[in-house]
């Protein structure tokens, strides 16, 4: 055999090897399942789609909050309080903060000033009031543009269709994780409808009612039920709506009364109670315009316990009766919580969303579908769901994402989770305000980027 024939024979053999490889190569395909809950009844829109802003006093009359220096014993503190003629209403031992009733005839401002002059007092201030950042309006998945927007009719009467992909990429994020049942989101709000079909299997306990000081956090407003559903409604159950955190649980903590009012002392106590009772994420869809050290310290307490706190920025921006666009407290405590602004179905910042340097991210807050108390609904006509507007609706989207991250990567610190949510956001207003801005912070949250491996190609 000639050398050329031998060479040809070798190439032929090599060719057979290569072909064999090609034939045996296995291709993998992924199939993605998407399920769409069905709407059973008509959903109507309430309140004309306006975000609700409660009006009223900024703080509780006749009360102040005081924190004494840690070196002071209980007896000395009680003696000091007696000297000022105050009467202790409540104490948060973890913060060493006292809620006291001041004597008649002395204003809160005067007492605050007098106490702040005492060298044994760390701080003293009014018991400020926080209010709901939105109220649910009308009352499923195809209507949840916030989670998956295909430019569909978003369901709320009078609203235009949304813009394709103006959503938080929830369906893509769920491909990576649907959350862990061990992850608990505390909804510090107006309580919850324990019998709601989309919530009843998600609630870990009866919760805590700081308004009535008992253990029954039943919602007598609707706001807490609405918020809880956005964060973690039971999903893929052929019922109602989808929650951001499919498998995570809800811990209801009631601080808002039937009028949507919450005292700062109760919010602070609720944050601490939630952090001490298994919450890994706390949602605060409420806010007040005053800073308060007790509130800040409660947030710090939760932060130091590894709890991610998410708070609504507030709804006092342009086009509202009360123009007070500064980010509300507790959201304004930047170091310890994520402040969430609102975008709409077109990925546009809403005019009414509060803004400022404290805003971290934004999430859909316009015409957002949430759960609505069954006992407040004429079930013969309506489903126990409603559309609502406000940063109250935005915050639980972020709380849900934080809960998914907690379950997926439990080793991450609070700062890590907050930064992941910030840095993975889509800068949807980059045309007008490139980079981080005071209106939507780093941008509208993106669950896909936060949860699913980001592909780096050459």
């Amino acid at each position, binding site marked *: *055999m000639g*050398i050329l024939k*031998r*060479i040809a024979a*070798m190439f032929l*053999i*090599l060719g057979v*090897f*290569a072909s*064999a*490889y090609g034939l*045996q*190569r*296995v291709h993998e395909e992924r199939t993605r399942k998407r399920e769409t809950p069905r709407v059973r009844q008509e959903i109507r829109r309430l309140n004309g789609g306006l975000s609700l802003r409660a009006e009223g006093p900024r703080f509780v009359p006749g009360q102040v909050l005081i924190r004494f220096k840690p070196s002071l014993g209980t007896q000395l503190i009680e003696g000091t309080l007696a000297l000022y003629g105050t009467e202790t209403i409540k104490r948060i031992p973890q913060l060493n903060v006292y809620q006291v009733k001041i004597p008649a005839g002395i204003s809160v401002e005067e007492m605050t000033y007098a106490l702040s002059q005492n060298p044994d007092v760390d701080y003293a201030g009014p018991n400020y009031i926080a209010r709901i950042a939105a109220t649910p309006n009308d009352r499923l998945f195809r209507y949840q543009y916030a989670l998956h927007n295909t430019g569909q009719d978003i369901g709320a009467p009078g609203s235009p269709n949304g813009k394709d992909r103006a959503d938080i990429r929830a369906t893509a994020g769920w491909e*990576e994780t649907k959350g862990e049942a061990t992850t608990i989101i505390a909804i510090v709000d107006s309580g919850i409808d324990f019998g709601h079909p989309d919530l009843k299997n998600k609630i870990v306990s009866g919760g805590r009612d700081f308004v009535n000081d008992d253990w029954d956090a039943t919602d007598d407003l609707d706001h807490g039920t609405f918020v809880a559903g956005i964060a973690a409604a039971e999903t893929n159950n052929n019922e109602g709506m989808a929650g951001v955190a499919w498998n995570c649980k809800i811990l209801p903590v009631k601080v808002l009364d039937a009028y949507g009012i919450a005292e700062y002392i109760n919010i602070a106590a609720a944050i601490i109670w939630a952090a001490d009772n298994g919450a890994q994420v706390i949602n605060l869809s409420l806010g007040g315009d005053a800073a308060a050290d007790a509130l800040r310290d409660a947030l710090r307490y939760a932060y130091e316990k590894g709890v991610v706190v998410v708070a609504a920025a507030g709804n006092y921006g342009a086009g509202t009766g009360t123009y007070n666009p500064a980010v509300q407290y507790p959201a304004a405590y930047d170091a310890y919580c994520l402040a969430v602004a609102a975008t709409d179905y077109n990925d546009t910042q809403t005019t009414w969303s509060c803004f400022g340097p404290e805003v971290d991210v934004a999430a859909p807050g316009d015409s957002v579908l949430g759960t609505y108390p069954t006992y407040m609904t004429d079930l013969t006509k309506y489903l126990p769901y409603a559309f609502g507007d406000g940063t109250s609706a935005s915050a639980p989207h972020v709380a849900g994402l934080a809960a998914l991250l907690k379950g997926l*990567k439990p*080793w*991450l610190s609070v*700062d*890590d989770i907050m*930064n*992941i949510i*910030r*840095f*993975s*956001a*889509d*800068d949807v207003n980059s045309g007008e305000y490139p*980079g*981080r801005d005071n209106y939507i912070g*780093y*941008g509208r949250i993106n669950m896909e*980027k*936060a*949860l*699913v*491996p*980001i*592909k*780096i*190609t*050459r």
Partner: protein
Amino acid sequence: MKSRPMCCGTLVFVLFLGFTPAAFGQARPPSDTSSFRPGLELEYGSRTVGWTEDGQEATSKMTSFLASLVLEFKIQPGFLLAARVGYSSTSFENLVFRSLPLSIELEAGGIGGLLLGAEVEKALVAGGTFSLDVVGQFLASLGLAKKWDIPGLAVEGSVQGKPTWMKASLGPVLAYRGWEGVTPFLYPRLDYIWGKFKLEETIQELKGSEERDIKAKAIFGLGLGADLELSTRLLLRGEAALYPREGGTDYSFTVRTLFAF
């Protein structure tokens, strides 16, 4: 050219030195008179590597291109040692890092590195139409750090990766020596690749790193090749190998030239 010069892994070399010294002097007769031969080698391989992630097996395709200078020494008749030094380019498909703050799937093309290797070949049966050698090989690819920007973030962020992998193989080589100028050969071999890929993520103050221990899914290969004696001083070798594994087959191709002085 009748011999099939191959190389040795250091460990394999030690094993040979330690356990088979008596065999060294009795193998096949020298096929040429050169005791030192330099050469060039190009190797392309596509291997499936796997790792454990949250208790579950995950896999990635590792593609490597190796270019190296080969220095072959004939220690004694039938016993060859070779050293390799050169450049390696390694790329991975779908190498996923889920323990980083922001999970990353890397499919980012070749990552350069330093290639070091050693080979040993010992003739067991020689002198007839067929010869039987045993060949051991050790390669180390010491990857250089490479940086990539993370796309689509609200802020600038990057990851820096550094793959290091090693390959050890050992097995007999059966060669047919009945043809003038062409020596086809066939070999089964134990062939194992293992290594690490460290990826560091930095997105402002958000930092994390993850090390992925990778291991080849296939540990057995079957190869076929031929030595072509282009002249009395120039040898060209081509070989191809298949590495069957669960669910498919990996492969490699090698071309080597050797010069005799």
